[in-house]
């Protein structure tokens, strides 16, 4: 019989469920509680380094249906603090499945909670905004002191925790793209190598000089976890890349860091965008695409400099989803064109990037 386990929110609300996966450390596991509305792609979610340190709630109630498929992982191991579902599947079914979720979480030391009303939890997080939460085996009541501590909890800067420690090379003989890894999803590399690129993935702490010394044809600034403003050292390096006018594409955190490098401002969203159904409008064509997203912060469009223009906006809340730059052959998107999980509708942006990489001078700076 599984142990009863509790999720305590910083506002004092708590949910009782059952424990699965690893046992939470004594004293519990604290972090920011966030929810994702994607209905498929839990393996990609679990292994997306951008969730580093977060307690991730799945709004879709049935998770683990197709088991564990290592080929679908987006990084070598999960980085999230805890995983919260309504129901995990004990008899998964898929021709590629190699096991169940419980075993996977145990192996990776990730505590899980199931059997709670995830919709009630999601509504709380939506109404209140993202909150810190504690996963614990300790039963209620929870004193004000604990809640105070929870409210004061601050996730340490996460990029250093998830970036690779040394450069690695992938792929073919085509244009050389440096992937600046802030916690990159594997599919960024796949999308590039699929297009014939030679990819060098470098750690987040690589300096602009080191990076340029690799003589890249383009730089892809990856996704990654946490508050973009925690990474001002990286931002300063990114400024130098703009000065070098090297073709660049930014995704998610990479997009935010490029904006910061251009003097724009980022701010926290009430409860972020996490899911596989976010509609985004391309202001240049008027076309709408459905995108995969995972971010808690956003770039304020009113803070963009003259040299940058808003290219994509979120159809639901009008927030910034992408920027075209004129001071370098560069563009960036807040959403995930590499998908995994989620729709592949914007994978064409990698083609745009390659066009920039190949014809930076002849075709001007922007991606059409």
């Amino acid at each position: 019989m599984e142990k009863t386990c509790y999720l305590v929110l910083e506002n004092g609300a708590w949910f009782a469920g059952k424990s699965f996966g690893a046992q939470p450390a004594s004293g519990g596991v604290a972090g920011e509680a966030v929810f994702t509305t994607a209905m498929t792609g839990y393996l990609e979610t679990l292994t997306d380094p951008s969730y580093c340190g977060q307690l991730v709630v799945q709004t879709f109630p049935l998770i683990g249906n197709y088991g564990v498929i290592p080929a679908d992982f987006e990084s070598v191991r999960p980085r999230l603090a805890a995983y919260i579902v309504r129901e995990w599947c004990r008899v998964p079914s898929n021709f590629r499945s190699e096991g169940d979720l419980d075993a996977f979480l145990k192996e990776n030391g990730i505590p899980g909670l199931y059997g709670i009303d995830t919709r009630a939890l999601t509504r709380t997080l939506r109404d209140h905004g993202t909150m810190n939460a504690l996963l614990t085996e300790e039963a209620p009541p929870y004193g004000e002191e604990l809640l105070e501590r929870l409210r004061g909890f601050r996730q340490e800067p996460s990029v250093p925790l998830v970036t690779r420690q040394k450069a690695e090379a992938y792929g073919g003989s085509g244009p050389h793209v440096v992937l600046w890894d802030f916690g990159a999803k594997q599919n960024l590399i796949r999308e590039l190598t699929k297009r014939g690129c030679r990819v060098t993935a470098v750690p987040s702490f690589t300096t602009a000089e080191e990076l340029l010394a690799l003589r890249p044809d383009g730089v892809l600034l990856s996704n990654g976890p946490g508050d973009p403003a925690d990474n001002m050292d990286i931002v300063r390096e990114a400024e130098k890349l703009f000065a070098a006018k090297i073709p660049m594409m930014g995704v998610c955190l990479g997009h935010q860091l490029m904006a910061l490098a251009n003097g724009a401002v980022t701010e926290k969203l009430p409860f972020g965008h996490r899911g596989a159904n976010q509609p985004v409008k391309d202001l240049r064509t008027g076309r709408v695409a459905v995108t995969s997203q995972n971010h808690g912060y956003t770039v304020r469009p009113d803070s963009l400099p003259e040299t940058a223009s808003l290219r994509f906006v979120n159809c639901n809340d009008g927030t910034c989803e992408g920027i075209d730059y004129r001071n370098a052959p560069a563009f960036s998107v807040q959403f995930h064109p590499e998908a995994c999980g989620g729709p592949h509708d914007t994978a064409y942006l990698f083609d745009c990037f390659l066009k920039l990489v190949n014809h930076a001078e002849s075709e001007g700076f922007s991606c059409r």
Partner: protein
Amino acid sequence: MPVKQHLKKVLVVGSGPIVIGQAAEFDYAGTQACRALREEGLNVVLVNSNPATIMTDGAIADEVYVEPLTLPSLREIIRREKPDGLLSTLGGQTGLTLSMQLAREGFLEAQGVELLGARLETIEKAEDRELFKETMESIGEPVIPSLVVTEVGDALDFASSISYPVIVRPAFTLGGTGGGIAENEKELASIAANGLRQSPIHQILVEKCVSGWKEIEFEVMRDAAGNVITVCSMENLDPVGIHTGDSIVAAPALTLADKEYQMLRTAALNIISSLGIEGGCNCQFALDPESFRYAVIEVNPRVSRSSALASKATGYPIARVAAKIAVGLTLDEIQNEVTGKTMACFEPALDYVVVKFPKWPFDKFIYGCRRLGTQMKATGEVMAIGRSFEAAMMKAVRGAELSLDTLAMPKLAALTDEELRKKIRAQDDERVFAVYEALRRGQTIGELHRLTRIDEWFLAKLWNLAKMDRTLAEDPLTEELYREAKRMGFPDSAVRRLSGGELPPALPAACKMVDTCGAEFEAETPYFYSSLAEEDEALPFIRRRASGKPVVLVFGSGPIRIGQGIEFDYASVHCVMALKRAGYEVAIANNNPETVSTDFNTADRLYFDPLTAEDALRIVELEQPVGVVVAFGGQTAIKLTKPLAAAGVPILGTQPDGIDLAEDRGRFDALLESLGISRPAGRAVLTEEEALRAANELGYPVLMRPSYVLGGQNMIIAFSDADIREYMNVILTANPDTDVLIDKYLMGTEVEVDAVCDGEDVLIPGIMEHIERAGIHSGDSIAVYPAWNLSESLTEQLVDYSKKLAVSLGVKGLVNIQYVIHEGKIYVIEANPRSSRTIPYISKVTGIPLVDLAVRAMLGERLRDMGYGTGLAAPAAFHAVKVPVFSFEKLGGVDTQLGPEMKSTGEVLGIAPTMEEALCKGLLAAGYRIETDKGLLVTVRDSDKSEIAPIAAAFSALGCPLYATEGTAAVLRKAGLTVETVKKIHEAKKNTMTLLESGTVGCILSTSAKGRIPARDSVKLRRKAVELGIPCLTSLDTAGALASILGRHFRQEELEPIDIAKILPAKK
């Protein structure tokens, strides 16, 4: 883009009568579309031959034509109305095909009408097998490889190139006779040879067999700017091989990894883009469970049954959005009604599971072939929403009205393991219950997967339910166990039965909202489903939005089945509208995804849950209504009366005692006696012995039926002791404890009255007379308004009887009374104090809003204050004829001979200034096509022989050569007619069957004393006619009416279309 500039008036084509494969979903779609177009300021002209629809209401469209859906009638309406556009994609296959024909023949262009929703090339690309294949290949989407061959050798070569197994489909053989699945070369050689032999053109199609693959559907939308989205994915529990309409379907797809899901999603978007559809589209895929291989099975470039399901499953109104796109709007310009803030360009995220369960007609068609395959057989469906698959499945099963409250089907418990395996292999409508029984007996998921190819994931979920079933039976019922059982969807009745103990305290009612976004945004959708042991969102919603008005809860009619069709949804929806107008806040409960009533815009709140007593009471607990309404949802809602009343819930309208008085035979007989009204003599019996005694006392023929009937279920006319024995066995097997009623069968004229009563006064909008004599179920009879040969005194007497009955049953609202007039005397057959099948028909033709008046009467208003008068209303300006429509070609083994048990699935209406024209329109709309240059084959039972000659003579006069079997031929010759004698099937090699196959016969008139059992000659002959598409009449009265209409030589172009939106009630 705004609405296309030149569009001012748009013609919407409906889908016609309800038939298997095309049901109420198109009323839902069409109604939404009309509303959406009118929101854009467009004038809407609607054509649909089906009167039992909301879309044909004057309030939905500007001009409404209940006219035959034929090319001549559509051309005439287009000429009169001169629309600027024709919306083709909302009327099912019927609407699409007609629109395509009008476009192809150049008529639309000549009239300056733009085809909206799908271009002609688009439709052709999706509908034409070869073009479709080419289009898919051009965009790299795999289709199921197939090749037409005429030699066994070619078949073998092709099969080895695509790998086994393969399916062989012979060309032009009916029901796929001569085809089969070949696993290897040897089998193929034999099947192909046989198939070629069977095919009249010596041709077979060899196709890669993908049965057993996963069947996945995507509902996708596209606008003219090229924006594309997916609304919903769906996964069939039953793998490829069973029609999706006959499959248990889950939404969203549940067993696909993101890689597979996105692969198919992308494919669906590529398909809709390449076809250039502007609107909605359904893409069906087969996916190999062992690899990433997939194939496109089918694409429907229109709204469909699946899109209705997807709309209800997600809250995304596909038809509404499709209609707006068709007139030029783009997805990012159309508002999402659910949030009221965001736009329609998004993809719903679900945080629940939806299960659709089909409703099959085999409880009625006991000799029908139950095996499921590529031909859909279900008449309707239920949908259930739960937070787990188990809970949704449990809700679906108990909502399907199978007398089950779990998946345990009692009769299967008696089977041996071997019989059970056989049952599972038979792949019939009860397969899932047989699988469940096998799991209960400890068979493994692996074994059952091998036997059925149902994905282990689904089997494991069924196993969870079976496990809970056993735990409840074996373990003490703790509060925790009870809670767990409730979360899994076990109703109290099942928990009580299985555990045998006292139930712990009830869990409080709790509902979740369907909000399209997984709670990401705050939504105000008044759309709920129950989810016990979780946070309730309904009560806070009710409080937050409280208007201060009293609340009324209306119960809908559940799944569409023979005998309880779309008419009851029509009435339920009108009841909701009337209550709203009367100043009430209205909640509705129903579980049929195809309907207008389950559009969350219909009532103030929608509860999508099963219509059982426990589920109903839970909604009552949340809503605390001042009263509930059961009178408009057919037998489904009426059945809730007793338990609701017992729980102290106030019933509005006719009181439970009045309902019981009408249903309880003893009480009803006593009432009739006290009123001095006759009914056919009869007895209630319990055993075969009693039945035989009663029948012999009354004298054959007698009418027999179980005491609780719906659409004449299991009702027959018995002519002999053998019939009594056969049917007592059938009835008592299904319901061992039921009373069986045996009545003297009177072969008279049947008339039907719908009336509104306020407790004192009665308003009868009109009297309907049936063309067929009593003995054919009223739902299968051609009904004519106004009655054409009732004397004044009989009419007066009918009005008097109806009033007396309505008042003494305490009717407040509607009552439907059926009478038979035999030798000048009126007998009551039955009285039902509720809405009936004929309500939409009679409301539309008389212009009297019956449901509205009934609701007002129910609320205490007096008829005399409503302005429509009392007593019998003056006849309307038009005659109207309702003609039943059947789905026999889809139901193998079912005898087409009409009788007291209802068999029709839908109906059409003909409206015209004269009865003959109305009848002609009705027959045309119902699809009667008689080729009078071909022969008429007559073979009738002895009791009909005395009347056959004049009818045959009428056909003969039209130029029809006559053919008859020996006895009938003798009668015809005696009457001076020329007739060719044909041998019966068992008599000779050249017989009636070969005559039909020869193509010389254009119509059959066949009646037989016996029938039903598929092995009988008469049944075989009628089935053959169905398979060959030859009209087969089984009532002399129908045949007589048809002959008289043919004799009038009406030209369709000359039958003037009538805009019923302009019909006003006759002034009193």
